[in-house]
């Protein structure tokens, strides 16, 4: 650094407190759901369609995993439901906040101009050429990010909750339509697994993009709420 240069630390607000807190609570509970869901799955790693299915009946997928019948699904279920409660209650706070603060409308809903063909193809081509993470792009989400987050928040998570509830004999005694619309209890289980797969895919891409865009600055922004950059002037 040359003598006489001026450093200016630029702090810019990025994420508000509700978004940050609900983000990390969701991250922790999703981790719990993933680990415990896997433990439950290992008790019977076969998937069926319709109401019923067991060893000796036709499956639609035989996952290349061992049958683990040594009681791993016991703690798995306890942890799964505890994590699910944290995740659902956090999601509820986030959704109410997102609606009332216009967070969904301002930060996630794509602007009409962004949905034009030229605009979309430019964003897609930028992604394919791995041209990411310009400072301007960091300030708000591009149309692909917006679309992905909307899918995760309004499609994938609600589907996980629905298919999860559809497997409960107690819940379906009150709302049988939850399971009949899906084609049966085993169909609900299979969809639960497939949607979980999409959420894992999202997680992998999400973390990869955070790394590509500058892991430290983005994680710092999600913890402290601010992005900091140092401008050096002569």
């Amino acid at each position, binding site marked *: 650094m040359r003598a006489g240069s001026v450093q200016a630390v630029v702090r810019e607000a990025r994420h508000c407190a509700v978004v940050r807190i609900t983000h990390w609570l969701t991250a922790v509970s999703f981790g719990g759901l993933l680990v415990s869901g896997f433990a439950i799955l290992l008790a019977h790693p076969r998937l069926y369609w319709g109401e019923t*299915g067991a060893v000796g009946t036709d499956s639609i997928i035989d996952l290349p995993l061992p049958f683990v019948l040594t009681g791993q699904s016991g703690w798995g279920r*306890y942890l799964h439901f505890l994590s699910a409660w944290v995740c659902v209650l956090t999601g509820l706070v986030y959704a109410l906040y997102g609606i009332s603060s216009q967070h969904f409308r301002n930060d996630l809903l794509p602007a009409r101009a962004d949905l034009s063909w030229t605009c979309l193809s430019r964003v897609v081509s930028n992604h394919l050429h791995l041209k990411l993470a310009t400072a301007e792009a960091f300030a708000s989400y591009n149309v692909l990010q917006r679309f992905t987050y909307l899918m995760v928040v309004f499609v994938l998570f609600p589907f996980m909750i629905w298919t999860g509830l559809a497997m409960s004999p107690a819940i379906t005694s009150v709302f049988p339509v939850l399971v009949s619309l899906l084609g049966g209890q085993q169909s609900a289980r299979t969809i639960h697994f497939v949607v979980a797969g999409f959420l894992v895919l999202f997680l992998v891409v999400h973390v990869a993009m955070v790394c590509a865009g500058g892991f430290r600055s983005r994680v710092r922004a999600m913890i402290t709420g601010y992005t900091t950059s140092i401008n050096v002037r002569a």
Partner: protein
Amino acid sequence: MKDRLTRRKWITTGLAAAGASGLVAAARLADRYGLIPPDHGGIYGAGETLTYATQRLLMSYHSLAREFDRSQISKVIPVNGPPPENETYELLREHDFKDWRFVVDGLVARPSAFSLAELKAFPSRTQITHQACEEGWSFIAEWTGVPLSYVLNLAGVRPQARYVVFLPFDPFWDSLDMPDAWHPQTLLAYAMNGEDLPAPHGAPVRLRVARQLGYKSIKYLARITVTDTLKNIGKGWGSYSPEIGYSWYAGI
């Protein structure tokens, strides 16, 4: 300065006390309305309690588990584990359970013992229901038996009753709260798909709890006891399942 500190101390102490007593009052109220499961302790207790309380508040006596058509009955009905290997059970089984008596005692006006023939002579209910094992597989079967409520009414349940404890010939004892005990689909089942219950499926009589996972429908019944507390049975967690890592309530 000193004044202000004492005042702040008073206010914080007061708030903490109010918060704590509020929590205690809420827990008492939840307990009185039967919203706290017996295995509510430990790190997973909060999740268990939320699930159990929410489902108890949602469900009513009239919410019935789905029932199916005869054509939907499964061809494959798996079994987890063999029948009990103790002498008492094997002897009863050798004599086609003619000497078996179903004992009803505890908080009842008329402690009783019923033979299999007597149970079969009572009004019966037949239902075709779906059963999911906690492992993930499931099947549909037709069950015939006496509604547990009929037997409880014969014995005359005392008003302070809170749970019915089920004692089988194997170690898998269990208990139901009164909403599930009185539920019309809770059966003492002696037949499956129109035939006497096969031994591996729980002969002579097994429990059917249609709104919970399969492991709640315990087999090889010997005796039921009506009680107002589960604290003095086993580890006090309501059934054998929490003692081996599975939750007492299995409505999931």
